[in-house]
């Protein structure tokens, strides 16, 4: 660790300690910065440590293996929010310390403003696992391409040497400072407008998202074990809402629309991160992001209505989903020579040849989603029924094939599926080939049905009620390709829809196939003891493909602190959440709130 990094680390610690000392009060009240209560500040800071409780599996962490009781995360998180109501300033009736400047806001009165405010959020994150965690994380991650004898200089400045590049998860994930959200709200009568960097969430489900696909998620610091709010990536967006009030039998009808001009997507977690998905294909990657223009804009609308006990919404929008469409290609300007390919395979230089000539493109598909929600209460059981339906149009799917399918021409001497001859080498006479792995699209139906119930279970807790929240999720791929691998492998063809992850149960000789129909159950049980000072919670998640998560946890509350202990037990088949079955961990989090 160099001196600069050391200074940085101590700077963080100093900041955290400073905040702790400044806020030693035992209460947690909102802080208004002016007597008129137009400027409001909130903040929270936490430190979370995640420790592995099992060794990483050989097949999933080839390059960054760790052992049980190795640190996976030591994350310090600071969030500061500021909300400022400008309505009185614009109306010329402000009396606070900003009143001298209210004349400058007078022209805005022409907008017939009912209210105008702005909101900004700062988020700072630092993960110490990259500095003082296990060696596999705290040391430089291996170079990916051959640039000769490794030297210190190459490690430090790989890009200044020809052919050198490095996956640098440490540089990307160690710390981050962000103006997380920044937007302005404008209300005039039934019209509401929000412009700026923001999050927008539609739908009714918890844990898994159906219609809630507008903002990408950042899985780089804990994956789905971290709350949705913390993982959302805000987008530059215009959001418009128009309220029609009561219409006919509806007590309320609202129309909402949004448009996003932003290039952010759910960037894959870099290989080397403790939270990355199992080992990727091993090709140099290229992430193709949307551009910040109207052609690549996301947008859509929804109608929300309330009819008696029922709350419903109808939704349609265009977005970039979080799961990238993975395509293995030879770069357009760099097709391969079959003769060289065959020679490389015969001499045992296959890996070198593949890395040098093939690329894995992560393309974020822009797709349309339609759907709706319906929620109603069942007072007799003190329950709420939540339902959601989403239709994904033309979602891309990766095809299964033996991982050596890409070697087809070199092994058989023929042009196998996926390859195309684009020329002939004038010197050797060998075919010049271009490769493009197969991706097809299919419509997908996703649905969810949930029930939330509050109940007293006197035997377990005589003083407080329990919240029981259960959901079932379904996914159905409409034009499912279930071509068996056995029928295509000899011809180096493409088989069933799959996740682009090698299947250890088949000696990594194929990718993990996915099911046409998938069902997942979730159950959350929570209550409180000692008048809310002790908050136990149990989350259970079962994927009917044969994997599960059991997540018991307890939070101790004493303002302004929260201490959370949580155990994440993942196991089952190597599919869905089972891809992370070797990531069992225990979490200790100390949080301070204002």
């Amino acid at each position, binding site marked *: 660790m160099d001196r600069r990094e050391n200074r940085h680390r101590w700077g963080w610690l100093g900041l955290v300690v400073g905040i702790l000392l400044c806020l030693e009060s035992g209460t947690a009240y909102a802080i208004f910065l002016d007597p008129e209560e137009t400027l409001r500040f909130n*903040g929270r800071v936490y430190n979370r440590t995640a420790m592995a409780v099992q060794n990483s599996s050989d097949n999933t962490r080839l390059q960054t293996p760790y052992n049980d009781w190795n640190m996976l995360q030591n994350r310090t998180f600071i969030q500061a929010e500021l909300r400022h109501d400008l309505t009185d300033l614009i109306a010329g009736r402000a009396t606070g310390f900003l009143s001298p400047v209210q004349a400058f806001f007078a022209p805005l009165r022409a907008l017939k403003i009912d209210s105008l405010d702005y909101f900004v959020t700062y988020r700072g994150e630092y993960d110490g696992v990259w500095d003082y965690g296990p060696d596999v994380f705290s040391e430089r991650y291996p170079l990916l391409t051959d640039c000769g004898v490794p030297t210190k200089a190459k490690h430090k400045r790989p890009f200044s040497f020809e052919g050198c590049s490095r996956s640098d998860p440490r540089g990307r994930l160690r710390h981050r400072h962000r103006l997380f959200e920044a937007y302005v709200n404008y209300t005039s009568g039934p019209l509401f407008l929000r412009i700026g960097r923001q999050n927008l969430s539609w739908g009714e489900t918890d844990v898994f998202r159906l219609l809630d696909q507008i903002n990408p998620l950042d899985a780089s610091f804990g994956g789905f074990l971290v709350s949705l709010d913390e993982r959302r990536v805000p987008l530059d967006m215009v959001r418009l809402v128009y309220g029609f009030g009561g219409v006919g039998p509806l007590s309320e009808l609202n129309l909402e629309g949004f448009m996003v001009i932003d290039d952010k997507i759910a960037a894959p977690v870099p290989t080397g991160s403790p939270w990355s998905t199992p080992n990727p294909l091993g090709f140099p990657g290229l992430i193709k992001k949307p551009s910040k223009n109207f052609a690549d804009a996301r947008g859509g609308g929804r109608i929300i209505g309330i009819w008696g006990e029922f709350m419903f919404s109808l939704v349609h929008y265009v977005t970039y989903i979080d799961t990238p469409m993975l395509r293995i290609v030879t770069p357009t300007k760099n097709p391969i020579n079959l003769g060289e390919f065959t020679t490389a395979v015969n001499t045992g230089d296959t890996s070198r040849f593949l890395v040098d000539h093939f690329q894995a493109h992560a393309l974020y598909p822009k797709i349309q989603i339609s759907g709706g929600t319906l929620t109603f209460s069942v007072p007799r059981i003190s329950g709420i029924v939540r339902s959601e339906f989403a239709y994904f149009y033309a979602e891309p799917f990766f095809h299964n094939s033996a991982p050596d399918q890409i070697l087809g021409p070199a092994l058989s001497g023929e042009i196998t599926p996926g390859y195309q001859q684009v020329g002939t080498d004038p010197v050797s006479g060998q075919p010049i080939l271009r490769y493009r792995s197969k991706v097809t699209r299919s419509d997908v139906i996703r649905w969810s049905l949930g029930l939330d119930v509050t109940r007293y279970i006197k035997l377990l807790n005589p003083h407080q009620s329990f919240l029981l929240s259960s959901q079932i999720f379904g996914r159905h791929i409409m034009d499912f390709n279930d071509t068996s691998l056995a029928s295509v492998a000899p011809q180096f063809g493409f088989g069933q829809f799959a996740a682009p992850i090698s299947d250890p149960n088949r000696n990594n000789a194929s990718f993990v196939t996915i099911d046409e129909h998938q069902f997942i159950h979730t159950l959350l049980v929570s209550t409180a003891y000692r008048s809310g000072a002790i908050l136990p919670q149990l989350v259970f998640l079962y994927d009917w493909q044969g994997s599960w998560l059991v997540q018991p946890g307890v939070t101790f509350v004493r303002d302004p602190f929260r201490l959370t202990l949580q155990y994440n037990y993942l196991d089952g088949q190597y599919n869905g959440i089972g891809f992370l079955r070797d990531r069992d961990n225990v979490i200790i989090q100390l949080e301070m709130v204002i």
Partner: protein
Amino acid sequence: MAILLRISAVLLSCLGLWLLPSVGQSQEAVQEQAVANFFPYREGFPKMGDIRPGMTIDSTNASNASSVLPPEILKYIAAGDFSITVQETTDLPLRPAFIEATLKHHTGVVVGEGELQHYVAGRPFPVLNADDPQAGLKAAWNLRYRDQGDNAQMRAKSGIVNSSGGVERTQSFSFMSMYGMHRSDPDKNISEWERQGVYSKQYTMMLAPSDMEGFQILSVTHDKDVIPNAQWAYDPQTRRTRKIVYNPYISPERGVLLIEDRAGFLGYIHDYDWKYLRKQTVLAPGPIRAAEPTWGGKGNWYLIDPWELRRAVVVEATPKTSHPLYSRRVLYIDLQNSMPLYSFVYDHDGNHKRTFLLVARHPDFDPWDNKGWFAQLAAQASIDYQLEMGNTFEITKILFNRALPASRFTVMALMLQGK
């Protein structure tokens, strides 16, 4: 039964004033008694035994106050948990408009199935007759339809306090309420809410702590008590606005008071059998002349601003079906303004479990330039003697009867106020 009640209601409204003498009271006498109940201190403030303004009641002389303090309070004064300073009774007359509405509309109002029939505005039952088997139920309706203004915007905070006075958790929030029906001036009712049968709506936004900041709840109370309240919530953790279940028997703060314990009693009337116990002069927390009350006694659980002698109606509510925590509730309701003074709840073994003390704000204390005083809750102390835990709730700022659009009480407003 419902048919009989409806017939009675029709007869009452047809016969109007002429029916009343047949039950033993002339209309003039009823009107006089109604007015007298609004001005119970017109003939002078109550005097009870040795209780005098300026005296302190503590463990040494608690027995002297046995006639004016319920045993549920007396016990803890005698044990030295807290003491009371006595002040002169405060006359807290309600707005003339509310009194006029009462006198104009109270005749013909009858109790139906989970609702009142022919109720327009004001206090529905300004005169309670101890011999009337429905007197307790009518007192409960008076409590529900007490004068609470047309709307109110409040800033409030609450804390969970242990027996050594340690504040374990605090919350700070803004709260708004609006009444769409039965306003003192019926012309000011909100026609859309009337059409939908919506009596009132409440909006709450959590301001602190920051892990709950931005959480909002919209509650809708229907005029018919038998129609379940509707609730929606905006959760900043999920950024969603969602319908949530309204269950008066749970404690959202996970503390020592249920939703129905708020403001003395905020539950469904039809869930209880109501029994009128008596009319009594009691010592109760007097109105405060400050933004915040004074907390003291054991655990800082008690409201220790001066108490005063007030005339009260005492009713008992027994759950009709199994209640998760309580076997019964005893409510002391201020005769003059129908605001609860305190209430007590008992567990299923009949033991006193919780005490709720309430205090109003004095009309003379109004730094917010409000117009038209009504008995507004300034603070509530909730004490669970079995858990040895208290909850302090106080409204630190209130603006009422201001221009406030009904659109602030919509699901859309939750979405827009969300992050």
